[in-house]
């Protein structure tokens, strides 16, 4: 039998549309209408090419003042007075309007944030829509989201800041619970990926929400500070870096205003010697490189039991060689660039630090495009011998956001889950969120209510 040369590779499969879907210039949505900002504009760039994509309004403190006044009016005049079941109708309409723009939203997120198009289209955008839909259903059932006897009074005007990871999803996760709880919501997307939120803004207009109830205000750190300094904003919500969260907590301390903080916590993956190994390797690749969730991307620690460490590294090397890092618009790309050059550097620093701390690093292969915030995928692995040692190493890490435990033993998984200081633990998985679960959905509502 002849041996053929390997002769089948995917041809480029770019998504239809591409950058042509974008407008040259975007305003901000405040008071139920698009407007320019007195603060001028800034350019948002494609992290895959470093090319500017569009000009976006840069809200000054005057613009922020105007947006907050409009939000207050929307809250007092309409939203607060509506029956909860009427608010629910508005929010269902919003989720439907977003789903009508699902294709555009996915494409815009991919262009602006570098998320591979299949991830945008098949995960982030459907999850964003599901989130809005689920919270719409909560709007008239708030009594069930709090403890018996507690009140369900909204806070008033809530401003949320995005960090730029999964921009469409983080916008939905910020707006969904704040609006459902009866607040007027202002979302300030990251200046590195503001466009997805502006697609949501357009959907908000199409859903005909009362003016001022939903605002999208674009800008940078100065814009965010203007919200923090504005005493008429009842609550500031943000995720992102721990330092940024701490600064907001400090600024609001001693006031009646509320800080809703979800600082990015480190993540951990523990692979036990009885794990389904092929799946665990896939899990490591996804949690470390492709589907990190809202956890600090440069702080995922992977612990592997020493008896399977060398086999895991061998498998991981093989797997990383087949990982397709490239054009986010290509339907066959598994991974894209980092959002910014600073984040790319953070990731590289993290790998270097792990090497110095004694980790073994499994690396993918280049070459990478010359322009853009690309980095060779690399996963540092640490060994452990006993479960007790794994727990000790995990505890040395402090508070953990998400933990993925890979094992075939249900008992072993429960043992670890009970002892890890983690917010969420997945068995044979990582960063899988579902807004219909308590931790994924209802729990967040309390933060936006005076109970």
């Amino acid at each position, binding site marked *: 039998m002849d041996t053929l040369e390997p002769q*089948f590779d*995917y*041809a480029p499969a770019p998504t239809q549309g591409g950058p042509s879907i974008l407008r040259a210039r975007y305003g901000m949505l405040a008071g139920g209408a698009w407007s320019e900002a007195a603060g001028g504009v800034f350019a948002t760039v494609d992290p895959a090419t470093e090319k500017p994509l569009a000009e976006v309004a840069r809200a000054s403190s005057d613009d922020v003042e105007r947006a907050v006044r409009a939000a207050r009016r929307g809250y007092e005049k309409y939203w607060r007075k509506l029956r909860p079941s009427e608010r629910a109708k508005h929010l269902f309409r919003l989720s439907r309007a977003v789903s009508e723009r699902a294709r555009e939203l996915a494409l815009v997120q991919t262009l602006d944030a570098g998320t591979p198009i299949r991830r945008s289209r098949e995960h982030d955008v459907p999850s964003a829509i599901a989130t809005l839909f689920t919270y719409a259903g909560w709007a008239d059932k708030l009594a069930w989201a709090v403890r018996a006897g507690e009140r369900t009074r909204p806070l008033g005007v809530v401003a949320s800041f995005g960090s730029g990871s999964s921009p469409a999803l983080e916008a939905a996760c910020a707006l969904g619970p704040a609006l459902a709880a009866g607040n007027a919501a202002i979302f300030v997307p990251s200046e590195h990926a503001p466009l997805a939120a502006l697609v949501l803004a357009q959907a908000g207009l199409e859903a005909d929400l009362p003016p001022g109830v939903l605002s999208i205000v674009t800008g940078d750190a100065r814009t965010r500070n203007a919200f923090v300094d504005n005493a008429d904003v009842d609550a500031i919500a943000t995720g992102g870096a721990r330092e940024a969260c701490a600064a907001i907590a400090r600024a609001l301390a001693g006031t009646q205003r509320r800080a809703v903080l979800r600082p990015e916590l480190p993540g951990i993956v523990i692979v036990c010697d009885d*794990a389904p190994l092929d*799946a665990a390797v896939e899990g490591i690749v996804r949690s470390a490189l492709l589907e990190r969730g809202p956890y600090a991307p440069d702080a995922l620690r992977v612990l592997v039991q020493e008896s399977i460490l060398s086999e895991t590294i061998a498998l991981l090397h093989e797997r990383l060689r087949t990982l397709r890092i490239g054009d986010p618009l290509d339907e066959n790309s598994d991974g894209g660039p980092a959002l910014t050059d600073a984040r790319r550097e953070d990731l590289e620093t993290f790998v270097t630090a792990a090497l110095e701390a004694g980790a073994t690093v499994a690396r993918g292969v280049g070459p990478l495009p010359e322009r853009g915030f690309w980095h060779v995928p690399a996963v540092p692995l640490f060994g452990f011998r006993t479960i007790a040692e794994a727990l000790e190493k995990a505890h040395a890490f402090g508070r953990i956001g998400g933990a993925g435990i890979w094992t075939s033993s249900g008992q072993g998984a429960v043992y670890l889950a009970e002892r890890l200081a983690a917010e969420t633990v997945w068995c044979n*998985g990582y960063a899988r969120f579902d807004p219909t679960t308590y931790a994924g959905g209802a729990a967040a509502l309390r933060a936006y209510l005076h109970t």
Partner: protein
Amino acid sequence: MSGPPARVDAVTLEARAAALFGRAVRGAALEAARRLTVACLDLTTLEGTDTPETVRSLCVRGRASGVAAVCVYPALVAAAVESLRSSGVRVAAVAGAFPSGHSTLSVKLADLRSALDAGADEVDVVLDRGAFLAGRYGEVSAQLEALRAESAGATLKVIVEAGELGSYAALRRACDLALAAGADFIKTATGKIATSTTPAIALAMCDAIRAHRRATGRSAGLKLAGGIRNARTAFGYLAIVKESLGDEWLQPARLRFGASRLLEELAATA
């Protein structure tokens, strides 16, 4: 085989299989995929109504297209051998009490021997699911080893009939038994039951082949059969094999598609 049976996680397996199966094969990749699929095709007819005449006409088509093999029942091997002489297309026969595997070992061996005596280059034997599902793994291994010994020099493909095994863990175990017994190929299905081949089944079998190579250094092949009726489906499986086993598996020595109607479909998309 030593150590505990390999563990499989169904959720991750199915998610990854679905993602790979959905790769976009477009443009220039389409023609390459089509050519590769034809080169790896076991053009198959396994009907009660088969005659030397229908087999000969199938061989003519297989020869013209340059498929890997023509696959028939043992009684029709002679007809296939005659029409495929010096064509480079190999003759494969199903054997070992195909499709159920319910028979005595002596009958299975005689079945296999008759196919080889008639000139078959390759035999596709079925794994004894009766014994396997009853947990008589030693018996399954002993049968496969006997069939392997009897087919020395020929290509041995072991059909695990994944759809009857009940779980991916059982599938993985069946694959590991077949590979340890020396199978040259493991094959998904007979094509005679409703659940034949799925992306996750294919990926689980690729994982078994990869683990076998890591443990022994031997590269066994994968044959996908049952329900592969159109080009899109075949190309989805090409993507799974390419990304889980690697480009070295994209050749007829290590990859086959068993199908009766796929050739026409491929021609139609060309």
